[in-house]
């Protein structure tokens, strides 16, 4: 026997903390950590919904597994982009946008990278 209020409260708090992390950070990797926390909250909500029964195809558990997999794929791509941006701009501060227009003509000169 378990009260559902606690899991729901933890899930809601995780999403809120993740939102704070996305909004308050300037380092792109730390923004990604906030997104991970939001996804964790979503997974906890799904597992809680699956744990109370009435779950015919185990959707709560299976969808959480899918979320974890998709989050792994998302993290891989996001970190690749972050490392690529770091090579170009030498920092990953997302509040600095001045480096982008400077690098755009260089990309146009190079033309199609393939």
């Amino acid at each position, binding site marked *: *026997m*378990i*009260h*559902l*209020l*606690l*899991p*729901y*409260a*933890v*899930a*809601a*708090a*995780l999403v*809120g*903390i993740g*939102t704070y*992390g996305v*909004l*308050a*950070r*300037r*380092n792109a*990797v*730390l923004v990604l*950590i*906030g997104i*991970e*926390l939001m996804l*964790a909250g979503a997974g*906890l909500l799904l*597992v809680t919904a*699956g*744990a*109370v029964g009435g*779950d015919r*195809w*185990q959707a709560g*558990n*299976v969808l*959480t*597994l*899918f979320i974890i*997999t998709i*989050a*792994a794929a*998302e993290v*891989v*791509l996001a*970190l*690749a982009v972050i*490392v*690529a941006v*770091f*090579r*170009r701009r030498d920092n*990953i501060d997302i509040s600095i946008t001045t480096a982008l227009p400077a690098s755009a003509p*260089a*990309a146009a000169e*190079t033309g199609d990278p393939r």
Partner: protein
Amino acid sequence: MTSLDLAFAAAGAVTLAAAVLAVTTRHLVHSALWLVLSLGGLAGCYLVLGAELVALVQVLVYVGAVVVLVIFALMLTRAPIGPSPEHTTSRLHRALAALLGGGVTALLLAVLVPLAGREAVARTPVVSAVIAGDLFATWVWPFEALSLLLLLALIGAFSVARLTGGRAQGES
């Protein structure tokens, strides 16, 4: 309060405390390490809720792979070891972010608390064999699509990292 409630409260407290520290600490590397503790605590929450397989996958994929990737990215972007004040935002910015985060939490709680009800419900632990049966019967096409997604993410990450590397060499 049942014993499961107490166990969940302990795991949830660890999760939330580590999550708060992960988004507020000024040490970049500490942030990733607090994320490890937070996601590990979340695996404990999953265990208490009876989802063993999800808890194990959470530890394997998140704590084992994702956080290692994050730490790798911090190293590759030359994160400083000590506190890094140049990456902190202004006090007003953080207050607004906290306001929005709190608002999101309040909104979700307003929806979820009426759903929760007052009485305790019976937890139904899920056996891994049942999940496996459903995963390869009902969910088999999403599962296959997911394997395609992972392959695409692998190729995409490789090409993004490689192409810009080639361009950077061409520029210099």
